[in-house]
């Protein structure tokens, strides 16, 4: 391990070592489970905690916001990366500025 490890200043600190240790496949799997569990918990809480001041109509229904976040997120990425960017993408030095 070279000596310019954390921020280029000696050996990694406790936080650096912890972060490095989280990249094993087992730890990544564990974090994934935590993430999905948190999503499930949020959705479950939505059964009991609801919106009393809906503004958009559909947001009066349970699970509107999880569906909104997921659908808008997926649609936005697909729209941008699969439709818009192929039309407007050029080489990095298109204008000769670099």
């Amino acid at each position, binding site marked *: *391990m070279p000596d310019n490890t*954390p*921020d280029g*200043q000696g050996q990694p600190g406790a936080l650096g070592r912890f972060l*490095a240790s989280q990249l094993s496949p087992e730890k990544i799997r564990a974090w994934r489970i935590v993430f999905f569990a948190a999503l499930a918990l949020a959705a479950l809480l939505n059964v009991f905690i609801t*919106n009393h001041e809906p503004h958009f109509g559909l947001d009066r229904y349970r699970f509107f916001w*999880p569906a909104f976040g997921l659908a808008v*997120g997926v649609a936005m*990425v697909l729209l941008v990366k699969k439709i818009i960017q192929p039309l407007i993408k050029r080489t990095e030095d298109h204008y000769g500025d670099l």
Partner: protein
Amino acid sequence: MGTSSFFHPAIAFLMTAVALPFLPGRRRWKWLLLIAPLAAIYAAFTNQPGDYLTLSWLGQTLKLGHVDRLSLIFAQVFAVMSLAGILYSLHVDDKGQHVAAVLYVAGGFGCVFAGDFLTLFVFWELMSIGSTFLVMLNRTRESVLASFRYFLYHTVGGLLLLGGLLLRHQALGTFDFGPIDPGSAQPYDFLILAGFCVNAAVVPLHAWLPDAYPRGTVTGSVFMCAFTTKTAVYVLARAFAGWEILAIAGTVMAVYGVLYASMENNARRILSYHIVSQVGYMVAGIGVGTAIAVNGASAHAYAHILYKGLLFMGAGAVLYAAGTQRLDELGGLAARLPWVMVCYMVAALSISGMPIFNGFISKNMTIFGAAEAHQTWVALGLEVAAVGTFISVGLKLPYFAFWGGKPTDWKRSLKPIPVNMYFGMGLLAVLCVLQGVFPQILYRYLPFPEAVHEYVPWTAWHVLQSAMLLGFSGLAFYLMRHVITPHKALNLDFDWFYRLIGLALYHLISRPMAWFDNIWTNVWNAVGLRGLMGTAFGSVFFDKGVIDGIVDNTAYGTRGVGRVGALFQNGRLQYYLGLMTVLALGVFALFFYGVL
């Protein structure tokens, strides 16, 4: 000049700019940079509403110190940000960068306290000049070119403002800077609005921002991300609150910015597009114009300056250490730059509106203000932008910069990050969390205190709604992570049109000029040249007959004097002493004769 207890923060920054070039030593002068922001913080918390520093100039009354709740909240966050920015840049030895930064900040304070359009215009242009140098002083070819484009563009924006304020003065006889009624708006008001919209980066006038900010110096872009657009937000809030066109423009900005940010590969360009997006929230709030919406816009400007400054600091620190800001060249750095990552994530969660962080308060207040005013499409557009914000700045940028699915990159050589950069980041990170946990810190300074309790952020529903929105946006990112992977590319934006317009203007001017030049050359060859030759012959005659005679005879005379002088200047000391004696005797004789 009438003053009381008001202290104008711009004075401290201008004095720093004047003094800096003359301060001796290699590093000790840097501590003096902290005086102006500390004085500004003191002023922002102690200045009281009123009109101060009124000057009479050319028959006009200039108000340099118009203080009210709106100007104070912006002055307060400008002061805090100037301290954080200067802390972050203390390691920089280039005095030019510091002079540019403090002039730029002085311009920002000048605009915030300006009570008339003329004062506003002067400080507006000072900001433009200071920020141009913050880009140029990066000293690369692309930054110099970008700074030139930036200056040209802001000159056009400044001219729109100048034209508007002069025409307004002609029509109304006043330069007073205050609310403009949208119902009775005149063309000059739209010119002023256009000038403000250039600096607010309102789409499609926004492309200067993602062009210039990623090319500024590491520290310069930290200042720029805070002041130019937010000064524009301030002037829009003061003059154009309730203009519905701004509600629409702001929503377009909010969505447009996140779409481009989702495509980009350059970290600081992603953040630049997110300035467009986040300023969109503020512009939309101002356009809605109700007390709670303007409160939301002001709160969001405050929160945004803190977290956007921190985002640029984090991305700048990565650029400083790794030497690149392209995401496809980064990754595997979380364990190498752990505290940079932590500070960046505080800012990323703040901008995304995650509970505990300040964006949770301000963003939701703005959306609430729009929804309560029955601007449903505006509110919905801002929610869409919130999803895109979390995906692009909250997840995509940090994922590909710090992880990217790669193992820890222990082999990459990283330049050590100066400790002062960590202090700057730490200060802003603490403030982002404090404002999120204790929103009353922000609430007490909002411009409409009577409306602050209309929105209560910390309710079970608001926390759950934000958690669900962001959590499932995160799921979308997880599912789409291989699609959103960034690659090297330039994405065409409206600057394509700017360049086209620039090129058209260039041809419009150069081609008729070239045509005229050709015609003129022919006319000159046919007519002018003969006249010139005739004049030349006359001149030659005069020159030979008269001038040469005078010059030659002067030369002969000088040569004769020189020959006589040479007789005495033979290098022999005894001759000199003798000559001196003769001269001394002559002087003495004259003196004696005179005494007699």
